[in-house]
C-alpha cells in the first residue's frame, strides 16, 4: 500500500514538473519567434506564469509527499507569482503602447488607437503598414 502511494506521488510530481518545464520552454520559443512586442508579451506573460506555477506546485508536492513536511514558503511563492506576473505584464504592455511601440502589420484591430477604436478602418490599416 505504501509502495502504491509512493509510485502515485512520484508520478504526480514528475508530471507537474515536466509539464511546467515544457510550458516554460514553449513560452521561450514563443518569445523568440513571435512577430512583434504585443504577441511576444502573450508568450512571456501567460505561458511562463503557468509553467512556473506547475513547477513550483510540483516542488511543493515533492517536499510534502516525499519528504513528509509541507513548506509554506513555496505556497507563498506560488501565490505571489500568480498575483504579480499578470500585473507586471499589463504594466509593461501599457508602457510599450504609450511609448509608441508599433503593432505587427498583420494585426487586425487596435482598440486604443486615437479616434478609431472598436472597428478597423482603411486608414488604421495603412498606418500599420509603416
Amino acid at each position: 500500500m505504501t509502495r502504491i502511494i509512493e509510485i502515485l506521488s512520484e508520478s504526480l510530481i514528475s508530471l507537474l514538473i515536466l509539464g511546467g518545464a515544457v510550458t516554460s520552454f514553449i513560452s521561450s520559443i514563443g518569445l523568440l519567434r513571435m512577430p512583434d512586442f504585443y504577441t511576444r508579451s502573450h508568450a512571456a506573460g501567460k505561458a511562463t506564469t503557468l509553467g512556473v506555477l506547475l513547477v513550483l506546485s510540483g516542488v511543493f508536492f515533492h517536499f510534502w509527499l516525499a519528504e513528509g513536511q509541507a513548506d509554506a514558503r513555496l505556497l507563498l511563492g506560488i501565490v505571489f507569482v500568480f498575483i504579480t506576473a499578470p500585473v507586471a505584464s499589463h504594466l509593461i504592455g501599457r508602457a510599450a503602447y504609450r511609448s509608441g511601440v508599433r503593432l505587427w502589420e498583420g494585426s487586425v484591430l487596435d482598440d486604443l488607437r486615437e479616434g478609431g477604436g472598436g472597428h478597423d478602418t482603411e486608414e488604421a490599416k495603412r498606418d500599420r503598414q509603416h
Partner: protein
Amino acid sequence: MMEMAVKLALLLLSLSILGNLYRMLKGPSMPDRVIALDAVGINLLALIAMVSIAAGTRVYLDLVLLIGILAFLGTAAFARYLERGVVMEVDPDHRDPQ
C-alpha cells in the same frame, strides 16, 4: 523516474532561460528587453526550486520568494521609467512645512 524528470526539467528550464537571454540581447525595442528580463527572472525562480529538489535541501526555498519580489519590482520600475521618463516622481511644489 523522479531523477530523470528532474534532470530533464533542469535542462528545459536552462534552455528557455538561454532563449529569453537571446531575446533580451537582441531587442529590438526596450519593452521587449524588459519582458525578456522578467521571463528570465520567473524561469530562474523555477530553476532554483528544481535545484533544491536535485540537491535535496530546503535552504534555497527562501530565494524563490526573494527573486519573485525582485523581478516584479524591477519590471514595475522599468515600466514606469518607459512610460514617464522617471522612476520616482518628485513634486517640486510640495515641500515639508518647515
